[in-house]
């Protein structure tokens, strides 16, 4: 990338500051207490961490599901909530119970990102609308910045709502969010889409432009690529093999944070949990996050050596050199600390990835991707079911088999279903329905598009180097995510998508090819591309895209926007509906 781009033409921090100001402006002076919809605590902390709220006189915080807020010392109570009916019920309960206790309160409700009439009606029916009327606000924060090149709506249920409930609310939010992006960063030059949901987002974006007009800036986002998760269901269920992807799969990253038992870091801390923030402010992490895990060990060793060498350098030096050394000490200590943390994490992961269950499962997964044994009942899956391993693992494998085989034979599918019901119980029957409805498992049709896609898009690359990759397929060791391949074709290959028209036709949903949207001045020196995943994207996909822009000659600044960061586990879990008699 050319130097002026590394500063970031699309400065995600601007979005962050914009959202932060909007929120703080809604606060009045005076002491206040925030009562949280728990689902918002994580995302909001990305923009307004507790110390910022404290600066604005937020003295206490409760969560909506907690029993009582009557110990709140301030008169002013702010409910920060999503527009969900059950949250309205909780708010109503709190207000009623405070009234019964004769506590004089001033209430404010801040809806994120916007209120709905349904919720207002709910408040009315619950008889508390009068208490909050005039103090209902909306914090239209659709995108939360995770990274200098990643923004997320932090709506992990978006894909499920879209496909299972057929509720397109997240499409509307997405379009509103993209429109805010335009307000902050300037207008969008042209748009490409693939998939029904992607096209829908674009259609709404066009409508909003009609309503609001385009922002008057000369430069902005050169190219917006909207991809519907439904066009590529393999990437979310395939095992990610990048460092960050594995952390997400095996430990779980929530809003850039992971929590580990602190005894792993035997540095005398109290037993309990240690929270680690993973982002590019940590030099070492930003260096290794996108690497295939097999290359992480080497990278860590190399770093350790350099730092050790630097420490060694303290012997026998002139005073001046000594002074420089001392000046560098704090920074070196930081690197040392971060080395220790990541060595620990890497060891934890290695323990799992070196285990036979992980390797065997990965082997089968990769066989499927290569088109081996995809069309019959696979004994490994059978045995996994027989051993009653975690159902998510089993479902992921079945999904991979179904997708790589472009659907399973009716007989095979029915057999798997029966096995799952017999072993894991009847309560999983609707989960299977949902997976089927979402297209993750399905009955084979006459056409076998995946085989064609694998060839034409080179989805499977043999013998790609893991430590020194030349192709994005390194993120899954053999498999290159279809979505990122599409981006590669669109931006870097001659002819763009026009050259792969047939491929696009075989993908579900309509295609939009580089449709002009707003008039902007394109700078020859660089292009800003935003790739928006409707339905979520994985860390591996993000790594693949980062790899792509670093690899290619043409200077492109790429920002990933998504409804949520997903991985095979939470993606599958969110589609499940486990019945429960309790």
């Amino acid at each position: 990338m050319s130097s002026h781009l590394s500063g970031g033409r699309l400065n995600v921090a601007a979005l962050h500051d914009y959202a932060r100001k909007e929120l703080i402006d809604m606060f009045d002076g005076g002491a206040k207490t925030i009562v949280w919809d728990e689902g918002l605590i994580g995302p909001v902390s990305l923009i307004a961490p507790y110390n910022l709220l404290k600066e604005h006189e937020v003295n206490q915080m409760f969560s909506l599901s907690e029993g009582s807020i009557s110990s709140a010392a301030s008169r002013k109570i702010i409910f920060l909530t999503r527009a969900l009916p059950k949250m309205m019920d909780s708010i109503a309960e709190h207000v009623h119970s405070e009234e019964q206790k004769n506590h004089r309160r001033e209430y404010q409700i801040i809806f994120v990102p916007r209120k709905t009439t349904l919720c207002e009606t709910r408040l009315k029916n619950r008889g508390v609308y009068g208490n909050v009327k005039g103090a209902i606000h909306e914090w239209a924060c659709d995108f939360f910045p995770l990274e200098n090149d990643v923004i997320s709506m932090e709506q992990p249920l978006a894909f499920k709502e879209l496909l299972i409930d057929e509720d397109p609310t997240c499409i509307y939010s997405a379009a509103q969010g993209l429109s805010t992006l335009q307000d902050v960063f300037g207008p969008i030059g042209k748009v490409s889409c693939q998939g029904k949901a992607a096209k829908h987002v674009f259609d709404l974006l066009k409508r909003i432009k009609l309503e609001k007009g385009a922002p008057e800036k000369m430069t902005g986002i050169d190219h917006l690529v909207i991809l519907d998760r439904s066009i590529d269901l393999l990437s979310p269920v395939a095992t990610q093999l990048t460092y960050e992807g594995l952390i997400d799969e095996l430990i779980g990253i929530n809003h850039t944070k992971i929590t580990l038992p602190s005894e792993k870091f035997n540095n005398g801390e109290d037993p309990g949990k240690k929270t680690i923030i993973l982002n590019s402010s940590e030099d070492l992490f930003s260096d290794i996050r996108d690497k295939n895990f097999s290359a992480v060990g080497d990278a860590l060793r190399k770093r350790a050596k350099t730092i050790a060498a630097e420490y060694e350098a303290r012997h026998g030096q002139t005073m001046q050199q000594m002074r420089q050394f001392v000046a560098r000490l704090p920074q070196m200590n930081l690197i040392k600390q971060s080395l220790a943390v990541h060595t620990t994490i890497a060891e934890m992961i290695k323990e799992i990835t070196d285990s036979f269950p992980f390797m065997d499962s990965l082997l089968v997964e990769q066989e499927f991707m290569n088109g081996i044994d995809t069309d019959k009942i696979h004994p490994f899956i059978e045995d996994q079911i027989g051993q009653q391993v975690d159902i998510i693992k089993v479902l992921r494998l079945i999904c991979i088999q179904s997708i790589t085989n472009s659907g399973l034979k009716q007989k095979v599918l029915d057999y798997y279903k029966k096995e799952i019901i017999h072993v894991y119980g009847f309560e999983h029957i609707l989960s299977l329905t949902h997976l089927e409805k979402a297209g993750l498992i399905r009955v084979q049709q006459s056409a076998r598009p995946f085989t064609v896609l694998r060839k034409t898009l080179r989805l499977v690359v043999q013998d790609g180097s893991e430590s020194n990759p030349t192709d994005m397929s390194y993120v899954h060791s053999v498999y290159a995510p279809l979505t990122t391949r599409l981006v590669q074709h669109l931006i870097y290959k001659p002819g763009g998508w026009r050259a792969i028209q047939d491929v696009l036709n075989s993908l579900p949903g309509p295609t939009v090819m580089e449709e002009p949207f707003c008039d902007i001045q394109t700078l020859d020196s660089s292009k800003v591309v935003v790739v928006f995943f409707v339905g979520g994207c994985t860390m591996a996909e993000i790594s693949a895209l980062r790899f792509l822009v670093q690899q290619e000659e043409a200077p492109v600044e790429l920002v990933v926007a998504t409804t949520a960061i997903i991985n095979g586990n939470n993606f599958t879990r969110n589609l499940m509906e486990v019945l429960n008699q309790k």
Partner: protein
Amino acid sequence: MSAMITAEWCPVGKDNFYRKFDIYQMNWDLKFDNVCVVAAQYGGPVAVIEDRKKHNAAQGLSKPTIFIYSASGQIISTILWNSGSIIELGWSSTEELLCVQSDGIVLSYDLFGNYKHSFSMGDEAKERKVIDAKFFNSFKGTGVVVLTSSFHFYLVNNVLEPKLRRITDMISTKEPPSSWCVLSDERKSRILVAQGKSLMLLEEMSTSAQPICADINSTHTEITGIVSSHDNQCVALFTDTGKVWLGSADLRVKYCEVDTRWRSKPDDFVWCGSEAVLVLWNGCSLMLVAKNEEHTTFAINEGMSLCQEMDGVRLLSRYKHEMLQKVPTVTQEVFRINSTEPGSFLLEASRQFQKGSHRSDEYLRLVKDKLKTAVQQCNEAAGYEFSHETQKLLLKAAQFGKSFIESSTENDKFVQMCRTLRVLNAIRDYKVGLPLTLIQFRHLRTGVFLDRLVLRKQYYLAIKIAKFLLIPEEQGESRILALWACNKVGQTHLQDDVVAREIADKLGQAPGISYTEIANKAIDANRSQLALKLMDFEPCAKRQVHLLLRLNEGKAALVKAIDSGNTDLVHIVIQHLKVHMSLSDFLYYIREFPMAQALHLKYCREHNKETWKSIYEQEDDFNSLGACSIREAYEPKNSSTMEMILNSAAEYYKKGKNENYQSLCEEHARLLRQQRAMQEKLNTSNFVGLSVNGTLKKLLLMKEQKLADKLRQEYKIPDRRYYWVKIATLGEQEDWTELERFSKAKKSPIGYEPFVDICLAHGNKKGAELYVSRVCDDMKVRYYVKLNLFAEAAKVAFEQRNSQALSYVQSKCYETHPDISDKIANMTHKLIRSSTQWVFALKEHKRHKMNNV
């Protein structure tokens, strides 16, 4: 020239001048002795009605006519009055004509005589009749106070949002007030009343009348006139002894007291600015009394009517429309004879320059140091002039002076003044008839002022001015166009199509245009079809939908809501439709809109399960019905009827031709039944709710082999799975003999690795070793290593000629068994020499499989 200008000035005391000048020559045919003339402030329109007080009884019977004229005397409209008798006329701050009737009804009309709205001043006013009324400028807009025949006051602060307030009673309610006026400050309105010679302040009911005194040196018995200044800071009183008293609004400060020598009650009594009052005895005398006790009389010879403005008084008469005001300070400075102000010299310099005289330079030298002030004075003074000639004179002087200084602020001010004057001159034109002074113009703000042009239907001029003054499109052009459109839709003689097209052509998609506002007007004019057509142009979906709902066009609203993608809007429309349609019609209707139906389904799932199911029934969506039933079966209240509900679910799946699910449901129902039976038979309680596998395992744990076999048969449990369960149970029971027997019963379909694993899992290493030899070749090395039998592992690997396997073994025993490790090194060496490589590792294995395909 200066002389001519100052000739019109009338000195009132020292250094204090008033001037009276013509605004318009009037062409109206009015006899001022028998009409009542009411002009609106800020150069507003004039309403004229035959004066009931001067009417004789015979004439009074006929219905009066109200004429509305522009300030330049052009007739705008007439209203044939056929309602109750009018007590008072007035104008609101939005230029609506207000009429107070004796029954307390206040009616309002627009400039064109169209009725707008009305409100009542209360029951008492209606029953006891109103005998007097006054309008006033309140903190909220235009207010009105009425006095009933029982001498009670009622007050409304804003005629647009009438909220009636009863005012506290006067000290004596027996006799009428001799005069009164309203004093309104930033928060409240009070009434200053004179009853005979006593004065009092009245407020709302909560406080009682508050008597106050004014320091009047006279033997009067009655105060016959009270008037407050435009800014409500000063009050003037008129006594029956002919004295005019000026003082502060609270009457504490007395400015002066002047004897007018007229005893009769004046016909008009108003403040002229805030430093003098004008007293008019019609046809006889017009007297100006200033705060400094000076006074002067203007000769008049005809009837006239006065209109109090913020910076003067407008005088309306048969032939003339004049303005009387205090000469603005800056004008005095520039024009006053013998003035030594820099502006005055600059004016002279400019004049000489135009004559081509060298004296110009002399004058200029006089003001050399104060040129900036001079320019400012000339520039500012130009603004106060109505005559184009004088304006030009002053602007030229300013421009002349400006060329000798470098100041961008002066430039800007000059340009600004030119623009302002151009606008002022345009609107003062008699065709428009809006004679605003500079001060009034600045006070009104541009938005209000453009509204006034729009009220006069001067759309074109308003747009030109808005553009000329560089007002942002949303507040200027777009807004005016929208108002034009609103007016257009009121023209009912035009066809809907024509109007809609004309509006769309003119307005297009201009920013800030709200088609909703226009459509709302159309609805007000009973033109809902037109409104519908207009709404097609509205870009904001929310407004569109709400308006369509207002028109009860729920179906059209649904389409728009869906298009917008805003699910909340769709919900709003759905709720509306549900209220306005029968349920069956509604359900039938929304099936055409899958998104709406899906949202409704989601809503019903939480709020109304019955409707939820009935929708699926209507759709013959048997799979969803099946799913509904399954969820229902799991509801705690249905635990006893679960089997039945599952069977009905199966029935649904059967109808939906989903045989797999049908059999799964039936099977589960059957399983439940059998589990109950088992519980009874085996006298235990933990079967119900287990999966097939769980049941099997439990039976095996209970050593109920027969039942287990039966279950295995009935549910067609494959051998592989049976083996997994059996091995796991035996392991759990640590029944190693049985495990051994089982391993030998027949060849294991899942190999012997699970046997090793289960033993290891339960710490039975010895047992595990029994099976390791039977592990398949591929896995042997791995399993020997698992058992820490490194030598054997190495041996197998060597036999398989697998160097990678060897190094794997070595890596595992490197630290613990250095001897074996050494041996392995040896073997590896041998292998490499023989150079035949075999495959083991992940990738190699994979390639091997691929080659097989």
